[in-house]
């Protein structure tokens, strides 16, 4: 491996630290993107061997969530449905938002796309995206003579 000069512009385009902003990736990946009713909050955490994407989806059924990977853009979409149709006049307070949702994130190039896994529990969607072996940290022992 060569040691090359650090170019901030190049870093922006290549480096995995810069996940895209809210809807940018959605617009670039599917031309027919509809504007969703809401955007669930997301945490993205980098670990040694994987990225973990955590999405808050309280009250959403597992079957109503869709995870899609196309052109290196991870799309989480779906619909949050009311348990049953409730007449508007019966609401004393309505703070929760229902309807369609979508979030898109451009993945760093060096991830193992085949090994992406997801789990949904207690209203939290956890997506594990393993880094490709090439970017996993290596420990090199230095021997002092």
């Amino acid at each position, binding site marked *: 491996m060569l040691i090359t000069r650090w170019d901030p512009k190049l870093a922006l385009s290549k480096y995995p630290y810069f996940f895209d902003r809210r809807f940018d990736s959605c617009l670039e990946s599917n031309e027919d993107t509809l504007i969703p009713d809401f955007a669930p909050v997301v*945490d993205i955490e980098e670990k040694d061997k994987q990225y973990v994407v955590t999405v808050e*989806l309280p*009250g959403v059924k597992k079957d109503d969530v869709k995870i899609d990977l196309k052109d290196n853009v991870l799309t989480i979409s779906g619909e949050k449905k009311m348990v049953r149709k409730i007449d508007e006049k019966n*609401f004393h*307070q309505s703070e929760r938002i229902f309807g369609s949702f979508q979030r898109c994130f451009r993945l760093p190039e060096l991830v193992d796309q085949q090994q992406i896994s997801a789990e949904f529990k*207690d209203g*939290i969607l956890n997506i594990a995206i393993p880094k490709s072996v090439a970017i996993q940290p290596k420990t090199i022992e230095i021997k002092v003579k």
Partner: protein
Amino acid sequence: MSIVRWSPRGSWLDLRNEFDRMFDSIFNPRYEEETSLSAFNPAVDIIEEDKAYQIHVELPGLNKDDIKLSVKDNYLSISGEKKRESKIEDKNYQRTERIFGSFQRNFRLSDSVEADKIEAEFKEGILNIVVPKKKESLAKQIEVKVK
């Protein structure tokens, strides 16, 4: 309207609430203690049905044991703490939109509900509270006879 939301940060546009609050804080100091300054304020729906009120609170990622529900002096109080799953250094985060911390929401109950028979269930990140109405306050059907 029987269940009225008690808002610690009421809108200034809602002058009546603001005045109520001012007087409450003068005559009822406990009112002030309930003020939640937490950034995490879970969303709540309250739906009136024939026999009960349904309260739905969004609490994704919480454990059943992290939620406390109590009734005191005609106030239904939902409180607890949303904890991170694991202690993680900030530098590992690419994006942090989720909010953690303690929370409290209070709702004044009317006299027409049975406070002793409130039931709650926690499932898929949603806390469902059922507040049954008293029998005597249930809607009655009166047949109108036309002569």
